[in-house]
């Protein structure tokens, strides 16, 4: 692990849902530029972990520091504006908006002009709007969605919808990107495309990425470090090599996978 202050520092976090401990004493440190994998069997609390970081559920105790600042009392929208973006396990695009509008939404989540200016249709509105569209277009081109910019997001094929969600998350110019099963429901070709894409994005935007993924080979190929959750507890942490050879992990997770495969 690197010695600099971590970008994301989760210490001893607990989350309780009506008596049920979904997350128990989990501590995670993520440094800048890392590509972290978060794996574990179903129901291990991976998505709940993401939900806690993005402010969607409140931890019952423990602390979440991002960039040295506590996220405890911040609502999801503030946390997003602090520089944490995410994608969702079940795609959550704005289905009736165009692809371009989907990507530009994070850029204007807090409009840069007043309500009055908007109502009067002042020139600044048009100017800001054109600028936003131009920047959104850049993201679309990078993710290879440029040709679809005027299509309704809901009409895109599944793979492109996943891609658009990543584009939308990037458009918020995050420091930390949380990907929740980006390869879910993808075939092998699509998976290798995704690996290339994520590798490129990671480099191009000098992002810190944390990814939940069930396709273990994607995790092994991309991630520099892996956390393994099981039943709400941290089971192991280490490089892909360490994880692959960790007997606890093999027992709880990888073994089960191998048997299936």
């Amino acid at each position, binding site marked *: 692990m690197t010695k600099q202050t971590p970008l994301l520092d989760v210490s001893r976090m607990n989350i309780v849902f009506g008596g049920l401990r979904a997350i128990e004493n989990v501590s995670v440190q993520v440094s800048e530029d890392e590509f972290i994998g978060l794996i574990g069997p179903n129901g291990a609390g991976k998505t709940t972990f993401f939900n806690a970081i993005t402010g969607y559920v409140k931890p019952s105790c423990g602390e979440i520091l991002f960039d040295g600042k506590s996220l405890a009392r911040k*609502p999801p929208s503030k946390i997003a504006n602090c520089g944490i973006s995410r994608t969702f396990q079940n795609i959550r695009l704005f289905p009736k908006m165009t692809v371009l509008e989907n990507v530009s939404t*994070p850029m204007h989540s807090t*409009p840069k002009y007043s309500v009055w200016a908007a109502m009067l249709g002042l020139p600044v*509105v048009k100017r800001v709007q054109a600028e936003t569209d131009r920047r959104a277009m850049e993201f679309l081109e990078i993710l290879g969605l440029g040709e679809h910019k005027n299509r309704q997001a809901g009409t895109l094929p599944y793979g492109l919808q996943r891609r658009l969600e990543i584009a939308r998350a990037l458009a918020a110019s995050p420091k930390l990107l949380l990907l929740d099963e980006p390869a879910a429901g993808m075939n092998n070709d699509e998976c290798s495309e995704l690996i290339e894409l994520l590798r490129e994005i990671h480099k191009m935007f000098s992002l810190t990425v944390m990814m939940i993924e069930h396709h273990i080979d994607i995790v092994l190929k991309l991630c520099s470090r892996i956390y393994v959750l099981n039943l709400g507890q941290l089971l192991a942490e280490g490089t892909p090599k360490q994880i692959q050879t960790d007997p606890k992990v093999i027992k709880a997770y990888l073994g089960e996978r191998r048997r299936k495969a």
Partner: protein
Amino acid sequence: MYLQSLAIFACVNMIAVAGLVLLTGYTGIFSIGHAGFMAVGAYAAVISFKYLAVPFLPAIIAGGFVAVLISVIIGYPALRSMMAGDAFAIVMLGFVSVVRISITNIKPVFNASFGISDIPRLSTMSVVLAFTILSVWFMRNFLKSHYGKNCIAIQQQETAAEMVGINVLKTKLIALMISAFYAGVAGGLFSFFATYLAPTNFSEAKSDDLLAAVVLGGINTLSGPLLAAAILVVLPEFLRFLAIWRLVFYGAAFVVIMQFKPEGLMGYREISFKWVGRLYGKVRGKARD
């Protein structure tokens, strides 16, 4: 004169509907009590005109602002709740009848159920038309701006909207305030045309009228509901038998439209505004005959 009053009713209806388009059609917040805001705006405008000697136009605007104030008092707590959509709908359902009952029981100034009469007819065709054009134009600009886009995002996928950084509560509150202002202004203009003001003027049926325009006209569109608002005022006048059955028809239409075309007749599309302009021209031309 008859056609003129019809045109004025249509215009007033369009102003209120324009407000409801923002709240229900764009932000996706169901409001079944918008007539309550019209009543508040109407009483505030008429009382400040008659008792506080405020001139006509400022009185109308004041009516709008009082409606905004009330909307925040009743709307903010509900919109904060986890079940915001339902809590707000329930609050608005109670709101219309509460406004009516309260006014009916206040004798001084409000004159209880007798209402206020002898209001000068200051809402002339030109005044109302100016208000309509301005408010529709403001609304169109707002909906096309980033604020409007944020509203659509909330309506489409609230969780994602919040996670990309939109302050959902604030955006909903802005939509509610603007919407209440429009309803308040519409209520004021209506009273200064009708020349009397009674608690029954703005009943549940009026809310149904407004909602019908938005549902029939479609969501995520401004021109659809505006057109519907005008048609729904004019149509029952020509087809008298429809007047009694109007609400029955609305109710059935709500269910049928939700089953087969939930986005409404003009959902996600706009009529070119030149066309609406021509319609205005026609209505105005007829009114002059």
